[in-house]
């Protein structure tokens, strides 16, 4: 069975302080804002409405704190115990290398230029390319055996979506994942709820 035969609910963590500060969070972390915590609970309420029996799903989160906190808040809001999910490193955000925690406005112009020239293969110093992340997301998806809820990060969510839908690099790059809402991938198509 392929992961494309499964139904996947892909969610991004709620809004964090570094989102507001326009910083590259990547493999660093910052706390969810009050709004981010409410976004997480809202996702849990949405899931409870969308899925008749949440007990038949597997739950996976990125092991970064903001994603696990989002998972725990949404599980409680969905009427589930906070624990009862797996945290898998392959769901972490794209690694931005030496540019982690820089404000976007402080990223060197030469780096912006290399991304414009080849956005799929460019890497920040010591970091991953979008192509690297595409392969990593594929290795995670290959492990799935049941319908699943996946709490991850903006770029990783866009990459999981592209893997599932079989999209081109261009289509993967042009998608922006919102902090709110639930993306359902099922039967080869996508539906967005509550964003």
């Amino acid at each position: 069975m392929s992961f494309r035969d499964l139904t996947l609910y892909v969610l991004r963590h709620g809004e964090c302080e570094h989102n507001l500060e326009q910083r590259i969070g990547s493999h660093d972390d910052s706390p969810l804002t009050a709004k981010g915590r409410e976004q997480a609970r809202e996702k849990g309420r949405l899931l409870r409405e969308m899925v008749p029996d949440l007990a038949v799903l597997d739950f996976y989160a990125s092991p970064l704190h903001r994603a696990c906190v989002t998972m725990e808040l949404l599980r409680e809001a969905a009427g589930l115990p906070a624990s009862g999910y797996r945290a898998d490193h392959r769901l972490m955000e794209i690694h931005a290398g030496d540019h982690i925690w820089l404000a976007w406005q402080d990223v060197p112009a030469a780096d912006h230029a290399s991304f414009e020239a080849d956005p799929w293969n460019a890497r920040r110093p010591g970091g991953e390319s979008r192509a690297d992340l595409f392969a990593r997301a594929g290795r995670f998806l290959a492990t799935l055996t049941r319908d699943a809820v996946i709490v991850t990060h903006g770029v990783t969510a866009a990459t999981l979506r592209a893997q599932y839908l079989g999209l081109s690099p261009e289509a993967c790059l042009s998608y922006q994942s919102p902090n709110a809402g639930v993306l359902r991938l099922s039967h080869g198509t996508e539906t967005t709820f509550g964003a």
Partner: protein
Amino acid sequence: MGFRDLTLYVIRHGQTEDNVAGRWTGRNDSPLTALGREHARASGRVLKRIAGDLSRYDFFASPLHRASTTMLLTRAAAGLPELGYRADRRLTENDDGDWTGLTVDEMRAIDPAHMARRDADEWHWKTPGGQSLAELSATVGRFLETLTRDSVIVCHGYTSRALRAQILGLPPAEAAARAMMPNTGVVRFADGKEEFFPE
């Protein structure tokens, strides 16, 4: 001023479900047990007892959930607001590669010869697809270079061994011979010496 001139308090995350099962979590995560949450609070009480005015310190945690959660519980038990720390990726636990989630017995069953090489030189050994303690030590060294004030650091078993090696300038064989920190209590590094404070 270098990081060896600073006073640094290092705390390992509280007990997790993987710790109980003897599994190497690496860069995955495993939830704190009820005892693990109490471990974190106990570390906070020790910190309050031994560290004096806590507003003098910077606070850093690994961004992995078990360490950041420990930081929140530790700070609250020390009488501080939960937030007010930085989560830095260079404090993330060692990458166990393809053997993430296994026990040592399981690793030995898969490749006994490779595990024998660990016994001979733990510091330079690595799991398939993972990284060595020597490599982890270089990463935490880059973190330590960023410090400007006395600090409290909440991290992991292998990360804390790598921090110790860097702070004390230990050669690999000596660093490898020193034990893992327990899941509770505080290690103080000051004036080139290490001291452990249990509750």
